[in-house]
């Protein structure tokens, strides 16, 4: 029932039929511009963070490690640290634009090298977790989308329980049972597929619970919508109904979650890598934090922000394609 909804009754017939390709490109372009803004903001914030830290900037960058005066001078020259703040900022931006994240003076190698060496292992873990999350939650949600009270209670209880278990502890339990007791999987992380199973499960548990919850609620909610009634009244069977009408609607809120989940997986992967002694950026960034290796920490943070931004553009594009109602606003 629409109470007080005042909308124009006459909608021009021909107008809302723009060329779809053009409109889609525009949506992506607008989001891209916004994302560049976000990244620029992140870069600027980290720049000022480094400069607000106590001590000379050159010492911050050197992480107070012992460096020869020659190295000090080279850094001052490279970063333009003897110039004005604005000059330093522009130099910093310029270096980033060429893909130069600076050097880690603790590891004595370029940040990009250090990260690049460890990145594939982390990406493999995140990708495996994402796939596991999507498959498991779709299956579980379709099974669990029932009105029988005991099914609902069971699912919501298990979902609440899983969210309450810290992922790193779940990892420890999995290790204890499947590696130390049953010897099914290696106890020390390797880059083999075997070594990926337990970490991916530990990391995927939370997102599976969250996505199943949202998808299950969505399925049940959509089944109450009036258009489902009219589809049933046309003689559409329950399977076709779910495939053709219901699932699409229920998936929409999940796509919005996907960006957030990917972001949190990057943080979560760091912890899980420590639990399973896996190679990856986890150990790298953690020791960087402990050694106050600012260039490396900032490099990882900016990289994570870039991944988040890219994933969100993809998510928005997906939503645009899936939901015609959002297209009017582009």
């Amino acid at each position, binding site marked *: *029932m*629409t*109470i007080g909804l005042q909308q124009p009754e006459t909608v021009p017939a021909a107008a809302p039929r723009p060329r779809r390709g053009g409109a889609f490109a525009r949506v992506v372009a607008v989001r891209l511009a*916004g994302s560049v*803004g*976000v*990244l620029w*903001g*992140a870069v600027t*914030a*980290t720049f000022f*963070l480094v400069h607000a*830290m106590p001590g000379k900037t050159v010492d911050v960058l050197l992480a107070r490690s012992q460096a020869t005066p020659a190295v000090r001078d080279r850094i001052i020259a490279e970063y333009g640290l003897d110039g004005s703040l604005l000059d330093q900022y522009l130099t910093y931006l310029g270096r980033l634009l060429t893909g130069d994240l600076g050097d880690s003076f603790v590891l004595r190698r370029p940040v990009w090298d250090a990260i690049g060496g460890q990145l594939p292992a982390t990406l493999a873990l995140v990708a495996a977790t994402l796939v596991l999350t999507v498959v498991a939650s779709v299956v579980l949600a379709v099974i669990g989308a029932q*009105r029988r*009270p005991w099914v609902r*209670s069971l699912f919501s*209880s298990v979902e*609440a*329980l899983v*969210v*309450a*278990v*810290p*992922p*790193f*502890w779940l990892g*420890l*339990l999995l*290790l*204890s049972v499947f590696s*130390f007791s049953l010897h099914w999987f290696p*106890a020390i992380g390797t880059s083999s597929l075997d070594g990926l199973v337990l970490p991916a499960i530990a990391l995927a548990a939370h997102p599976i619970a969250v996505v199943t919850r949202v998808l299950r609620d969505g399925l049940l909610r959509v089944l*109450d919508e009036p258009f489902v009634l009219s589809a049933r009244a046309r003689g559409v069977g329950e399977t076709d109904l779910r495939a053709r009408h219901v699932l699409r609607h229920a998936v929409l809120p999940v796509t919005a979650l996907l960006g957030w989940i990917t*972001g*949190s997986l*990057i*943080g*979560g992967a*760091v*912890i899980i890598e*420590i*639990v399973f002694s896996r190679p990856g950026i986890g150990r790298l*960034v*953690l020791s*960087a*934090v*402990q050694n*106050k*290796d*600012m260039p490396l*920490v*900032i490099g*990882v*943070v900016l990289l*994570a*922000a870039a991944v*988040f*931004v890219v994933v969100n553009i993809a998510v928005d594009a997906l939503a645009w394609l899936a939901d015609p109602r959002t297209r009017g606003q582009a």
Partner: protein
Amino acid sequence: MTPPNVALPLPEAVVAPARPRRLGFAIALGVLVLLALAAAFPQLFTGTDPDAADLGATLAPPGADHWFGTDQNGRDLYARVVHGVRPSLLIGLGATALALVGGILLGTLAAQSGKVVDQLVSRLLDVLLAVPGLLLVFLVAAVMGASGFTAVIGLAVGALPGFARVARAEVLRLRGSAFVEAAHGLGWSRARVVFGHIVPNALPPVFALGTVSLGAMVVASSSLSFVGLGPKPPTAEWGAMLAAGRDFLSIAWWPAVFPGLAITAAVLAITVVGGRVQSGIERRGR
């Protein structure tokens, strides 16, 4: 236009099992009360010193002497779990409170102070949202050194955008609502409408989000302690205790189990009670 037809009754309301939920809620509430007591007066639950090492009984299994067993230094794990309530929950609680207050202030400011400030605040929140919460803590820890305090600051900054966005959206929604219009129509001043009608109605959804995120914050803070970015040893913190237990996992399971059970029980209790609070708030707002 007429009211909607006889709405087909939603099974949700009719069939929802009232009794198991009430029981679960009572248990969860009981757990929270026990946790609060243990945080305030750990001596009520144990007379053992959590830091007293007994090198004659390292990694002793659970038994009558040591209910949860002992750790690698022979310290009583039950006493450490009980004394760990305060440091383990305080970080999550502090971070949530800080994020809540900051989010409400920032969100209300954005919604009430015109386009320029709104855009500025919103873009700032976008930047914060782009960095995963745990990495923000890493950044703060790298700058200020790892400690319980930096964990609170980092987690709060990471959670703040969520609260600020909800607060901003609520204030904007309420500003355009008919009852606020009606309040202006009664001739009240702007301040009276804002503090008498808008703010009181905007707060409950933000608090609801707070109760729900508290559990996630406790999990996050224990994760940080686990990787050594929380309170420094020998503080009995559950995440840090699990980290120590990890090293002896192949020979002793108990140091890696009981602190984890404590976290899970605490977070589950928070989630159940928080969920009830949230649905109560939502129902009142309809």
